[in-house]
């Protein structure tokens, strides 16, 4: 049992040096993560040494290449059977290389890739002093409206640090769902959270809101991770180890040779339950489930829209991946304890998200609440605790992330003098000015609403089906009711775009560069393909639906 070995490393330090054995790391199998992290480091070096003028191109190049390469590596691993037959625990028990991990990593990498595309968009804002600008602040450090900021703008500075930050975040997200012990989990959590906090603060326009979003996100995130950490501590106290496998064994009571020293804590279910609850809470925070959702609308609104899109898509994927692994690998023995709780969370999340969204007036906040509602739907799939439950969640996450990135990419296009025009009233009659953009956005909204023939419907059907098979019929009923509520406000936006009179000083639609176009195009394509012919991807998901223990 290698997992035990890793942690007895230090306890056996008194043994003669000859017994010392170096940890064995399967670099090939961890290549996706390593590539991304490495690229991030390269990015840092670029910031340090490459002249300002060419940083942007260098960073974009590095990021794209890295993410693409990492994705290729994931594909290679998957086709190499690491997702199914050869799935196992790597890095001395720290990381799992199995179906779910690879599938989610692939999704995250694609999300990251298209995220980079939207990050790199420089055609939307009018050029300042002859310099093309993207959606990030010229100099995050300078006070908004101050002379230093003006100078920075004049000098044509851009915050190219955004790219390495994104890469770091992606790196953390890659680890998060494949983490196989609680420590790795926590570290990964922080690794992808911290860059996101920073990214939120980097908006070029509306910087006050951006900074406010960052502060809120950071404080609440830190708060949540503190809970997670305490939960980890309790679990460690309960099982005497942070390795998933060991904890699972202890939970199942199949653990061998109980050390008498541990007797008074080990197997103390109170520790277990409280600890588990606190860790789950940390994950639910990242997922944006009610009542841990309140950061979502503010952060989504304040953050630079490309960041919002990336965050909304990738974070959810990573967090749900981790949640799945935790519940399916570590706590299956505890099923009868956490399922009812999750039921409650799922219900309030679905209903809460949908209901509050009805009265939203800002498109980004609207999408934020819709993402909350979707978190609820996905939870319904998580609760199924069956293989089809896992596969349905994987499928849903893949489908959802593309729609999300696409939708937020469209949001970046609709602009007026003050930058993006996110207030719904400004979207009135958009369909008359630029029917194509409106139509594309309508497709995304319909997908969100889960109207048949879109990926949203396939995903929703998958999770509800899984939930029903898992015996959660009431959950399904509540799910369909809340999707009815949700459908209402998506459709409302559509009608606003097409059938209300456009106001004269309404926003204009910027013509984006191929980068954003690719992101949007990919979103539409995936939405329709997964809606009309989802079979292939469903296969993929169901093959990838087995966790290694």
């Amino acid at each position, binding site marked *: 049992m290698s997992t035990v070995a890793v942690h007895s490393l230090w306890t056996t330090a008194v043994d003669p040096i000859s017994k010392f054995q170096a940890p064995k790391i399967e670099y090939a199998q961890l290549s996706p993560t390593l590539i991304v992290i490495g690229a991030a480091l390269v990015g840092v070096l670029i910031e340090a040494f490459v002249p300002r003028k060419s940083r942007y191109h260098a960073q974009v190049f590095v990021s794209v290449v890295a993410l693409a390469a990492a994705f290729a590596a994931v594909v290679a691993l998957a086709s190499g059977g690491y997702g199914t037959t050869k799935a196992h625990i790597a890095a001395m028990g720290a990381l799992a290389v199995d179906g779910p991990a690879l599938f989610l990593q692939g999704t995250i990498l694609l999300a990251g890739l298209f995220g980079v595309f939207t990050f790199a968009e420089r055609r939307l804002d009018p050029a300042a002093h002859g310099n093309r600008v993207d959606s990030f602040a010229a100099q995050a450090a300078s006070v908004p409206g101050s002379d230093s900021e003006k100078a920075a703008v004049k000098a044509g500075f851009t915050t190219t640090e955004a790219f390495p930050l994104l890469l770091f975040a992606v790196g953390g997200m890659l680890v998060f769902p494949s983490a196989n012990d609680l420590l790795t989990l926590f570290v990964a959590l922080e690794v992808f959270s911290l860059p996101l906090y920073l990214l939120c603060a980097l908006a070029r326009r509306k910087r006050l809101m951006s900074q406010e979003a960052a502060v809120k996100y950071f*404080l*609440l995130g830190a708060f949540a991770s503190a*809970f997670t950490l305490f939960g980890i501590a309790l679990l460690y106290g309960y099982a005497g180890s942070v390795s998933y496998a060991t904890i699972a064994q202890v939970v199942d009571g199949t653990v061998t040779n109980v050390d008498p020293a541990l007797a008074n804590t080990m197997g103390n279910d109170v520790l277990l*339950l409280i600890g588990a609850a606190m860790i789950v*809470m940390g994950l639910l925070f990242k997922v944006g489930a009610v009542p841990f959702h309140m950061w979502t609308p503010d952060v989504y609104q304040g953050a630079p829209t490309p960041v919002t899109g990336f965050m909304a898509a990738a974070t959810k994927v990573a967090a749900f991946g981790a949640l799945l692994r935790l519940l399916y690998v570590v706590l299956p023995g505890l099923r009868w304890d956490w399922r009812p*709780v999750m039921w409650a969370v799922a219900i309030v999340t679905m209903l*809460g998200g949908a*209901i509050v969204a009805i009265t*939203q007036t800002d498109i980004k906040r609207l999408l934020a609440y819709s993402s909350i509602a979707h978190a609820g739907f996905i939870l319904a799939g998580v609760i199924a605790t069956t293989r089809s439950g896992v596969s349905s969640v994987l499928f849903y996450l893949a489908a959802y992330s593309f729609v999300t990135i696409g939708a937020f990419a469209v949001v970046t296009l609709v602009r007026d003098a003050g930058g993006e025009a996110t207030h719904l009233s400004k979207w009135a009659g958009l369909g008359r000015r630029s029917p194509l953009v409106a139509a594309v956005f309508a497709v995304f909204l319909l997908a969100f609403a889960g109207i048949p023939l879109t990926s949203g419907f396939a995903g929703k059907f998958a999770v509800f089906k899984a939930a029903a098979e898992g015996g959660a019929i009431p959950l399904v009923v509540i799910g369909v009711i809340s999707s009815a509520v949700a459908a209402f406000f998506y459709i409302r936006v559509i009608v606003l775009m097409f059938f209300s009179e456009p106001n004269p000083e309404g926003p204009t639609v910027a013509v984006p560069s191929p980068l954003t176009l690719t992101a949007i195009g990919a979103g539409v394509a995936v939405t329709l393909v997964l809606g009309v012919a989802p079979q292939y991807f469903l296969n993929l998901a169901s093959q990838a639906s087995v966790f290694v223990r």
Partner: protein
Amino acid sequence: MENLIALLIAAPLLGAAVLLCGGRRLDAVGHWLGTFLAGASFVLGAVLFTDMLGKAADARTVTQHLFSWIPVAGFQADVTFRLDQLSMTFVLLITGVGSLIHLYSIGYMEHDERRRRFFGYLNLFLAAMLLLVLADNYLLLYVGWEGVGLASYLLIGFWQHKPSAATAAKKAFLVNRVGDMGLSIAIMLMFTTFGTFAFGPVLDSADKVGEGRLTAIGLMLLLAACGKSAQVPLQSWLGDAMEGPTPVSALIHAATMVTAGVYLIVRSGAIFNAAPDAQLVVTVVGAVTLLFGAIVGCAKDDIKKALAGSTMSQIGYMVLAAGLGPIGYVFAIMHLVTHGFFKAGLFLGAGSVMHGMNDEVDMRRYGGLRTYMPVTFVTFGLGYLAIVGFPGLSGFFSKDKIIEAAFAKGGTEGWILGGAALLGAAITAYYMTRVMIMTFFGEKRWQPDEQGNEPHPHESPGVMTIPMIVLAVGSVFAGGFFSLGDRFLHWLEPVTGHAEGNSPVSAMTVTAATLVLLVVGAGIAYVQYGRRPVPAVAPRGSLLTRVARRDLLQDDFNHVVLVRGGEHLTRSLVYVDHTLVDGVVNGTAASVGGLSGRLRRLQNGFARSYAVSMFGGAAVLVALTLLMRAV
């Protein structure tokens, strides 16, 4: 030969189609075309009649199967026509009188720019009526039944710009619909009982069925008859129907359509024979109506309304007879035919009078017209004598027979019914004499109408007088012709069957009594209207008179109970639909919206309150988890 039956209907139907779809280019010839096709139908009928006479009495029924109409498992409705003595009688009456009235209308409607359409409707009516009497099953009969209803609706409301006409038409259709309900329920009952509703099977196997069921069917048929034939309690529409052009009143609301109910009852004789209770109800309805109509007829100053009342009452006689069973069937039909002649004649006469009097209908504005329009006077007079039952004229024979049959029913019922019939005869004499005197005798009372143009009474043109003459001849001789050697009896017997009742009072006494009452009635009328001048405006009159003027409060009843009640019902339902049914849903929507607004406030922008909710959430999470373990 029987393959020609369909043509009987086809001819006028073609006319209707052409005239209604033809457009203005047909205006010039439309009326002639219509008349021609009606005549053609009559000729064809005559041909078939002669052909029928050539056959043995019991082999005269012929059928023509056109096609299978509604074939659904077990439910087989065919388009099949049946021509026997009964339907043949009607064919001749309908086409004959119909053709005459077409002819008359050419003159009467001369100045109406929508004359083409009028003839289209008339042809439509003929087609429907023929379908009604030729149908071989009840469902097909139902088609004709509603067809004539439609035609009557269109013709009553022909002058649609007059709101009164439009309302009258609507009323007629609606009241008839109530009757139609009866017919359709009757058909459903037949289907569940016999598995079919074709005349043959149903009537042949009627005796196999329990009496209760047959009574139900009979009563439903009676309801239908009441609607179509303006019998109490569904008689209210007939008076208003006089809003239509007079030829329409003559053809539809006197001679043919309104008698369809009698046809229905006689045709379904087998059912009624086996359901005495139903028969009793029929006779009662008939008796009541004949008095009702007569009384109403006495009070009306509108010549057409007076005649309408008399129509109602005469049909009452027929229904009464039909209710008597085999004793009465033949006489019901016979009276129907003779009535067809003289009542049509009377109406045409009235029309002719109106034609000469700027469409004035109030008899108090008439008077002394005999010198101005002699032909009308004579023909009208003959019709008058016929209807009051002057010995030797049509009405005398047919009505007398019915009264005898009524007595022959035997028992107290017999006495009551017979008495009612006799009384009716007297009243008939009274109101008809009244009409006669007020119109043609006494001093002239006419005066300028609203436009102030003095009416110049004049005889109507030939196209109008000829039909009147023909009908007058019919009303004089038809009855005698039928009765000599019981021609009519032997003609119809194979279809309707016949039974001689043994009357407690001899035929002679009945006849005598009738004549006496006739004289009495006429005398009273003469004293009231012939001896003293007729006031130009109606005196307030006795309570009975006033009530009778208002159709014995029938309409008031309908208005209060049905119209008002209906209005209240619908209005309240509209309210319910809007507030309750809709309100629930809107309420839900609104409450969800409100909830959304309230929940939204939780998102107050303060990071710390978010933290609070997280902390609380965590606490709940932990608590729940522990709770789950505890329970």
